């Protein structure tokens, strides 16, 4: 069975539940996460949850600002990542 894709909604739920970011307005798939308070400390917490929840291992080289800029970008990248490592 191929691994299920990760939706932006799943990523948003994680960001809110784990209080990774601190948005003034509700998060959308296209919200700029860095504008919502994502800094290096928050990103480290996010990486921790991503590795635990989605069973991926993220190398420092993969951690680009673009991939983590929005929930949509992050979900798309994680989905690709899961497919290629499955």
């Amino acid at each position, binding site marked *: 069975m191929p691994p299920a894709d990760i939706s932006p909604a799943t990523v948003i739920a994680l960001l809110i539940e784990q209080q990774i970011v*601190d948005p003034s307005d509700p998060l959308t798939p296209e919200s700029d996460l860095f504008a919502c308070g994502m800094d*290096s*400390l928050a990103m480290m917490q996010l990486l*921790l949850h991503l590795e635990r929840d989605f069973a991926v291992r993220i190398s*420092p080289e993969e951690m680009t600002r673009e991939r983590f800029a929005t929930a949509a970008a992050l979900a798309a990248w994680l989905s690709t990542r899961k497919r290629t490592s499955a």
Partner: protein
Amino acid sequence: MDTLDIIVAGGGSAGIAAALASARQGARTLLLDRQSNLGGMGTNALVHTFCGLFHPDVARGVQWLNPGIPTEIGQEMLRRTGQSAPDLMGRVYVLRQHPTLFALLADELFRAEPQLTRLSGAEWTGLERHPQGWKIEVMAQGVRRELHSRALIDTTGDATGARLLDPALCEQTEGARLYRPAYVCAFQQLAGPQDESWRLGLGAMIFRAIRDGLLPAAAMGAGFRESPFSGEAFLTIDLEAGQAHWDPFDPAKRAEVEAEGRHAALALWQFLRQEHPSFHACPPPMLPTQAGIRESARYRGDYMITGEDLAASRQFADNAALAGWPMEKRENARGPKFRYFDNPEPAGIPGRCLKNSAVPGLFFAGRCLSADHEALASLRVMGTCMATGQAAGKLAVDFVAGR
């Protein structure tokens, strides 16, 4: 025995402002401090940002929030660090300060006041009320001394006066929820720019190393921020400090926390020097005199300001200072949780938070003012401590003058 007008206990941001405000109004003032650098957390713990100096509505641009000493120190720090403006970080303005320059600036401001004297290395060991004022006992360089004053301002951050006089005058949040201590050290001879992508890349590298067992778990609370001077950055590590077991008044736990901070800082230095090009030429980081303490004990004053008051930007008839920094809660080492004011308007801090009618002539300001745990998350920052310190200095002068 010579009786002073006002004794200020504690030489941090609040104490500096209280002593200057008092001496500038002509009161014979003495400041005692256990450290040798004035500046408190801003020098001895290398806390390198002045928060709380600006109006919370960033749409208005940079507006200094509290006139007088907070603005004077902030503007002078801007000038001496060669910055043109504070940094806009998300929804707030922050002024990067340099601990060395803060200590020197405080020295200069003190030297300019003939009415102001200062004792360094003085541990406050006793307090008694007398009809004419206060008897304060200090231990300095192994010698016990008695000091007398008509009014007293406690800017120790720890409500030391309350704990010496009557512990019922203060309160303390339980260990599990106390805002965590932070260990800050200075890295020098860094190569290349230290911008946001540099910080993110560094975070990703540190994260991987922790997960792979190459760095201690405490490094998860580590973040770098650039100094106003090139080639230098400050590393801040928020420490769990045993979470529920944390007690800032237990010297054995303080020793553990200091050692935990040093260990994490040195492990990061060794790792980054090997692995990250910016750090290849870095000497070992400069360590702080002590870990940064965000919360210990607070006074119970005539009024205890709450998080709700701040969120509603409430104003009081006896406003003594203004708060503009969001409630920056750090109950764990996993990063701050911000609670912003409902509207970007400053909140008032009433003079009743700086005194208790049951103990006339005793004032308090800075981190140990009368506030609940939630409100303290905003009021503890250095810019606001300067503002409440200044206000307490003025209240003490009024008290001595019989006003």
